[in-house]
């Protein structure tokens, strides 16, 4: 495909972007199918009779009739391959099965929890971005002391485990100073500590990546020419290099969101917040398999969607990527 006129070129670029989007969606569907399949067969490795588990475990001494009834109700008397296709069929209609422990549809159960967790993750992602950008811009290109300090802060932040950071924050701000509640209260104040707990380690990771690309961008000719035009050092950083520095971090946002959802398991448990993470932990402890499978699929869905979106966003933010695809 050789670009002739500018319109031709634009059309071919648009075509390439559409093709790319098609590929991404196909890839996303494949990943979701594979996650569902992998989870389904992994769950079959669990020793013990699922019918027993549904009726409250081996200690419950369920009668043979009750066991048979449950096997019929849940389709457990069918051959494995039939169960597998039945599961895929139900997934396509958004049916995630029924919780063993709560006897409620998993889709309803998780639907009620998803909003809170996504809000928590989104706030944490935003705060992490602000902290990371601030740190990277402040500490880059200012000599050895600032960059060593910046690097130290990044490594330390990235090394903080959620469960420990949460405990220390509670000890200082709730027990010591009494400023913020130690458990989530549903108010804004109750959100502060969980969001900070999730954001700080992530900011450490993001800042490391941003700083590398910021250093790279600052050696580009356009920075020199902006400086020669008389812009201040900070002005150049704010106006010209942030976009470059953000690109690798944008493409990491899918990863970051997945990481935050996994971190929500710990944070929601510590701050006693309702949400996907805490539901997942309870389900793991109770071996409530439909709920575990449901959360895993939901997180995979969010992760996959985010990956597609960030890939397209990077293409929109960086014209070079579009042109590469066009040739």
């Amino acid at each position, binding site marked *: 495909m050789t670009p002739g006129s500018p319109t031709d070129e634009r059309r071919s670029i648009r075509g390439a972007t559409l093709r790319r989007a098609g590929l991404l969606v196909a*890839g996303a569907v494949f990943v979701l199918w594979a996650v569902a399949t992998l989870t389904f067969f*992994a769950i079959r490795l669990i020793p013990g009779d699922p019918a027993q588990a549904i009726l409250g475990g081996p200690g419950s001494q369920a009668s043979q009739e009750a066991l048979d009834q449950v096997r019929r109700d849940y389709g457990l008397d069918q051959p494995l391959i039939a169960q597998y296709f039945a599961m895929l069929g139900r997934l396509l209609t958004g049916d995630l099965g029924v919780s063993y422990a709560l006897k409620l549809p998993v889709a309803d159960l998780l639907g009620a929890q998803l909003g809170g967790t996504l809000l928590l993750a989104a706030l944490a992602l935003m705060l992490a971005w602000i902290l990371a950008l601030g740190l990277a811009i402040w500490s880059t290109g200012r000599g050895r002391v600032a960059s060593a300090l910046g690097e130290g802060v990044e490594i330390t932040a990235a090394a903080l*485990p959620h469960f420990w950071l949460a405990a220390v924050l509670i000890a200082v701000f709730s027990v010591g100073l009494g400023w913020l509640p130690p458990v989530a209260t549903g108010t804004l104040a109750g959100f502060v500590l969980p969001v900070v707990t999730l954001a700080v380690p992530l900011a450490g990771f993001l800042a490391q990546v941003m700083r590398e690309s910021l250093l790279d961008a600052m050696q580009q000719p356009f920075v020199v020419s902006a400086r020669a035009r008389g812009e201040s050092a900070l002005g150049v950083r704010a106006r010209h290099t942030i976009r470059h520095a953000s690109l690798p971090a944008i493409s990491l946002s899918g990863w970051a969101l997945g990481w935050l959802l996994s971190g929500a398991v710990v944070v929601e448990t510590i701050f006693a917040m309702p949400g996907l993470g805490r539901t997942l932990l309870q389900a*793991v402890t109770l071996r409530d398999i439909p709920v575990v499978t449901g959360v895993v699929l939901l997180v995979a869905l969010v992760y996959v969607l985010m990956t597609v979106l960030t890939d397209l966003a990077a293409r929109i933010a960086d014209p070079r990527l579009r042109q590469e695809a066009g040739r």
Partner: protein
Amino acid sequence: MSDLELQQATAVSAASHAPARRRGRMPRIGTVLAAAFVVFLLAATVAPELVATQDPNEIAPGDAFQSPSLAHWFGTDESGRDVYSRVVAGTATSLLIGVTATAIGLALGLGLGVLASFGGRIADFSVNRLVEVLFAFPGLLLALLVIVVYGPGPVTATVAVGLSTAPGYARIIRGQLVAIRSSQYVEAARVLGRSPARIISRHVLPNALLPIFVLATLGIGQAIVWAAALSYLGLGAQPPAAEWGAMLAAGRTYLATAWWMTVFPGLMIVGTTIATTVLGRALTRRGRGER
């Protein structure tokens, strides 16, 4: 091993064309401190009785909940046990879990990486898809799935953390092996008629060894954090054990009155992670000829 460390590792290598600053022959002060901390951890692992000040399991109800002092550096817990000595006693378990999990993740990652880079196009395609799928189980999620299947406990937790780090390692190792595969010395060996097995064992793996060692160093800290998180959630080592995550979980109840039961075991985890990261970066710099 998280995907981000992967990004870091690649970012670091991408930045290698930047001019290296001359710093004389002295190693950085951070590297020295990190090395000293690792020596302390190794001493606590090999000979905890020499590093500890007291018997970690000696119960003294009269001394319960003492705040940090000269007699009890990190204070005492609800049974009057010395927290510093328990932290020292827990070093071996925590390090063992972290190192084993990293080894499992690396071994799997290496296997997948070799398969992808030397097994032909179909193998490469399949491994890449598999890694992509595994990335859709972010962080602890894969580990929790493993625990649902095999039940909680320290061994399952270790294997689970190892498994969840494997896809990240596989992706980086594949990238490095592909680069080595297309190098001239491998081409030369191929022209000389060496068998693929011999090329891999004599030429490729020795050259991949240092980068993989660096990866392992960077990954151990994260593995310890994840394993401790599982212990903290009650799915790994259980509280009577002096493992750091389990100690943190035990201290949770007394957070309002005895902060030292939580702060110090956590500081050990943070210190270990920082030390391994700093050492890993120093090794990376050495690998490309900087100080």
